[in-house]
């Protein structure tokens, strides 16, 4: 069997089966779950790179499940955008899984570990499913797999986690319902669920109220899933109380994949002219993003719990991504897609740092960072880089996506949007300076002798990798844009 040709389906089947096998392994020998998960996620990562390579060299991949032709059968379609998101998802989930072992041992009861890895692999399966499929109903199925795995993973966190997860279940299910209703309406009107097919059929129906409602339902559904303001209320609790490794992986992948779905719906299933001209959806999205950015940043500033701070920052960052989509030009779109990647790295890095501090100090409070530069110099160096990237200082990655986002808003003449982005930079500066100051200066006043006391290597290495990655990605932004992102820009931009 030619692996390259089967890669689009293998990347789903392997983790799906593995998540089931993992339970069996777990009942036999608990300690084998970790290496098994690493192997599975590692092979997914390789497959994702393989797919990316194929897409760059030979163009969009069309894979028919079981040989059934669309629109009757399910078709997997992978273009530059899908491959890009798949690489992000697999990278994040692999790196965080390396990190997870010691962190999870500390935060969870040993009996839960096999379930953790099972759910973790299942989460990755769902996320990858969303990114490879070319079918709106199939997206729904995988969205629910992802969400269910996510609910469970969050619920195994600290004592407040079950309640937070329950909130998330309620909100997430409402979101899924909206999405499913959207799918249903489209099916009623067109009789098709295949994205390429819908793209062909829909333009004739743009005047229809049902289609308008379907579009609105899609957006509301996805907005809940990506915690887009003001539908974000479930996120801070869920991501704060989840185990650190879970926060790191869900924060860096779920919102990103959600953003991908939003891009697909607004720019592929519907044409850009529908989303921006026939109905003023993009300007509604744009102004909501402004609110998301401002309120996310300001609320982040008000927190003392570090993970909660990050959660609100993440809400602002979702606003960044959506704002770039809403302006409807090349620079803005480029900024959004680039920010999906950069933000995944930054958020994963920061949540893993949070986990490392929890591991050593047992506290999520910002005060726990006091004087850590001596105890955990490497973790704190990575934290510093991620913080600077969040502020948007070159040559870190965060600068480059912000550059394109602001450029996009200016080209669209949206001054308020540009101001909101820069305002958020300013707030991020205040937030992170406040913490960095604790890290690097207050240590002098602490009387306890400060010897080096880093987290275990399996936790430290992923953190450093992410920190270094933020710098490297920054320097390679141009290459990433020219080899991948520019092919994802919708026609007409």
């Amino acid at each position, binding site marked *: 069997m030619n692996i390259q040709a089967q890669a689009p389906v293998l990347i789903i089947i392997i983790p799906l089966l593995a998540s089931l096998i993992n339970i069996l392994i777990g009942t036999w020998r608990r300690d084998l779950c970790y290496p098994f998960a690493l192997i599975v996620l590692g092979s997914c990562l390789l497959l994702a790179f393989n797919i990316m390579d194929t897409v760059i060299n030979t163009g969009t991949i069309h894979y028919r499940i079981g040989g059934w032709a669309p629109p009757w059968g399910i078709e997997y379609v992978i273009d530059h955008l899908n491959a890009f998101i798949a690489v992000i998802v697999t990278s994040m989930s692999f790196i965080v899984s390396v990190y997870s072992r010691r962190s999870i041992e500390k935060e969870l009861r040993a009996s839960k570990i096999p379930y953790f890895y099972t759910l973790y692999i299942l989460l990755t399966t769902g996320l990858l499913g969303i990114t490879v499929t070319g079918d709106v109903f199939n997206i729904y199925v995988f969205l629910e797999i992802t969400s269910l795995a996510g609910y469970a993973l969050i619920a195994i966190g600290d004592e407040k986690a079950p309640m937070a997860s329950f909130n998330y279940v309620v909100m997430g299910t409402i979101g899924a319902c909206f999405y499913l209703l959207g799918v249903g309406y489209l099916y009623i009107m067109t009789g098709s669920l295949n994205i390429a097919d819908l793209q062909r059929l829909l333009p004739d129906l743009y005047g229809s109220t049902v289609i308008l409602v379907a579009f609105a339902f899609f957006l509301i559904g996805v907005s809940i899933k990506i915690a887009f303001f003001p539908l974000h209320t479930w996120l801070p609790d869920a991501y704060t109380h989840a185990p650190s490794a879970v926060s790191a992986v869900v924060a860096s992948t779920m919102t990103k994949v959600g953003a991908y779905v939003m891009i697909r719906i607004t720019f592929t299933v519907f044409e850009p002219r529908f989303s921006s001209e026939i109905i003023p959806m993009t300007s509604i999205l744009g102004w909501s993003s402004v609110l998301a950015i401002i309120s996310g940043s300001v609320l982040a500033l008000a927190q003392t719990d570090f993970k909660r701070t990050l959660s609100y920052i993440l809400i602002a960052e979702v606003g960044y991504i959506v704002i770039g989509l809403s302006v409807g030009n090349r620079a803005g779109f480029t900024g959004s897609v680039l920010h999906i990647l950069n933000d995944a790295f930054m958020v994963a890095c920061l949540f893993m740092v949070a986990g490392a501090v929890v591991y050593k100090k047992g506290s999520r409070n910002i005060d726990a960072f006091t004087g850590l530069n001596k105890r955990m110099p490497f973790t704190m160096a990575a934290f510093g880089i991620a913080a600077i990237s969040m502020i948007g200082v070159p040559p870190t990655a965060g600068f480059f996506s*912000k*550059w394109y986002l602001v450029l996009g808003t200016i080209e669209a003449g949206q001054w308020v949007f540009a101001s909101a982005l*820069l305002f958020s930079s300013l707030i991020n500066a205040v937030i992170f*300076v406040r913490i960095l100051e604790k890290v690097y*200066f207050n240590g002098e006043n602490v009387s306890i002798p400060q010897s080096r006391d880093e987290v275990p290597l399996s936790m430290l290495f992923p953190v450093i990798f992410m920190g270094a990655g933020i710098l490297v990605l920054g320097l*390679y*932004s*141009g290459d990433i844009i020219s080899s991948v992102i520019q092919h994802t820009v919708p026609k007409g931009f």
Partner: protein
Amino acid sequence: MDILVSIKPVLAMAVSLAAAFLILITGESARNLRETWTILAAVIKFLIVASMLPQILDNKVIEYTLVSIAPGLLIKFRVDALGIFFGLTASFLWIITSFYSIGYVRSSNEHAQTRYFMCFSIALSATMGVAFSANMFTTFLFYEIITLCTFPLVGHKGTQEALKGAKRYLTYLLGTSVAFQLLAVILTYHTAGTLDFSNHGIMSAARDRGASDAFLTVIFVLYMAGITKAAMMPFHSWLPAAMVAPTPVSALLHAVAVVKTGVFVVVKIVLHIFGIDLLRQLGLGTALAYFSSFTIIVASVIALKQDNLKRRLAYSTVSQLSYVILGVALLTPSGITGSIMHIVIHAFGKITLFFTAGAIYIASHKTEISQLDGIGKKMPFTMAAFTVGALSMIGLPPFGGFISKWYIAIGSIEARELPIILVIATSTILNACYFLPVVYAAFFKEPKPAHTHSHGSDAYQSPVTHHPSIHEAPAMMVVPLIVTAIGVVALFFSPSRFLELAKIVVSSVTGGN
């Protein structure tokens, strides 16, 4: 104008970066070796910069593209007359400051010396990066690196007061640059389609392409608000707050590297982003001139009230930095010459003054001007150097300060802005008012009884009017401040090399008119 491609500007930037790394791995255990790296890097850096001088004087430009990240976003170096002017000043003064620093931190037993020297090296790398940057992106990049790596130096002492100062420092410098300067840079790219500096200003054609005057004015204002390192009012208060830093930091960074980066970037923006023609058409030159005049006068008045020596020097710096901006804002050849000359002349003068403040602190632990009565007899060399620096600030011949003030005054006549002369005169009087009493007290007043200062040992508490313990600071500190004082005088007698460079700058930006 010929363009040479050479990696030298990158090396000039990178040598102290390498040194920072070596300093880190050498660490506290081998401090002599660690300090060797600093000195070595400083000397090599200066030699590299100096080796580029002949080509620049030959009217050539040296370029090197390090990385091309994305369209419009290139890390690219370009050494021109203006850049090498600043590069020479900063790298030369770094050598002297390095010796002084070593004397200072060892005499006062500072903690975290490795971090101190490492951040210092990185700061100088970034300063060279700004001096030799070819486009606004590279400038912005290194501008931010300077902010970040000097933050630990400002907060070095780790006391509550130091942290407060450092926080204000970072909030002002980082906040305004990510909010205003970045927006201005993006707007520039949006309007001009490039960020590469050009001699006639990359925005010069923007008007013809439909950019409205109001829009261009907004960009200009954003730049001025975003380059807080130039300490123009109302964004100046970080500089006095940063005086909590150890004195060598105040000396090199807050008289030379950081603040001069600020005014240097302002000069770049005036000359190379907007261009003098466009600014004249928009009337923004005059506006900037009067705005900076306001800072010159008000900061001088505030300086009068300061009793803390370093704070007085800081307000003096705020005032003097605006001279540089004033000069270039006049948009006339003499004004620009005066502005550029003031970069080097003020650097030498102010670093001398800060060096003396540090020497006084190390020798006697005195920080307030009211404690300095009669100290000139104890520390004659130090106070003589102080006098030289002070007189140069006032602008008296035969000290360097006269030259730049002279050119700026002529520039204001060329620009037909006679009120500016009044500003210069007023400021000169104010300068005299806040510097001469210090000199007078040091040399001609009798020392006050000992109880005025807090570091009381038994000897101090006895009713003896003399402090037998006060004598000159270590030679490692006194020699550098004498060297810079001599530099101040030398700049008056032979400013030709620097004037030549200034002339090249002027002819390149006004050429073709």
